[in-house]
């Protein structure tokens, strides 16, 4: 990537898509008996990713388990779904800004 900020943004977006995948899997398995909600600890996994590691998914503690052993909370997943999408949107705007700045430098500041 172009620079440290762009690099961090790239990892951030990678991690957001990994998390979105877990949220999507949780929603798809909302009626699967025995399924346990999976998520990743965003802070620590982001540090891990910046250090060159790979994201690790963990089970979420403290959710109410239903009679069939499933503990997916659709409200929680819906919140995370929109939160991830919004964060991703912000990150992609910032990334676009990075490219614009680079383009401006290439054009010697002549074009916007």
């Amino acid at each position, binding site marked *: 990537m172009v620079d440290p900020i762009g690099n961090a943004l790239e990892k951030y977006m990678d991690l957001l898509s990994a998390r979105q995948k877990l949220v999507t899997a949780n929603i*798809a398995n909302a009626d699967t008996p025995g399924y346990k909600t999976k998520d990743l600890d965003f802070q620590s996994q982001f540090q891990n990713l910046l250090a060159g590691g790979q994201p690790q998914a963990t089970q979420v503690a403290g959710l109410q388990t239903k009679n069939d052993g499933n503990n997916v909370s659709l409200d929680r997943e819906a919140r995370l779904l929109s939160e991830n999408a919004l964060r991703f949107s912000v990150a992609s705007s910032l990334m676009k800004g990075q490219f614009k700045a680079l383009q401006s430098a290439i054009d010697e500041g002549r074009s916007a």
Partner: protein
Amino acid sequence: MSLFSTLSVSASGMAAQRTRAELLVENLANAETTRTADGGPYRRKDVVFETQAASSPFASMLDSALNGAPAGVHVSEVTVDESDPEQRYMPGHPDANANGYVAFPHINPAEEMVNLMDASRSYQANVASMSAVKDMILKSIDLLR
């Protein structure tokens, strides 16, 4: 990369809920059916969901790192209600036994309707997650413009 396989996770959820809705509608339609190909009254069917590795043609490094975690869902089994059918006294009915009782399926329409609503809402939840992921993909593509 990873986002495209996320779409197949949503799709697996939609397919599973659709299968469930089909069976529930079949139950409702056959709530009064006294004759089937196997003989005897219709028997109530239901699905069993099971997690499944999301099938994507392009498995990425990130996927394998989230070892086995990203899971779609599929219908692993269709269960058939084997409980004794409901006996109704209808001596004039062509399927009545010697005592005048007819075996009817053990189906409670209210229960089927509630399950059908549940399947429909779950389907909608999967559509919502697919649309959120689609927006993320579009945002990424927009970086190229």
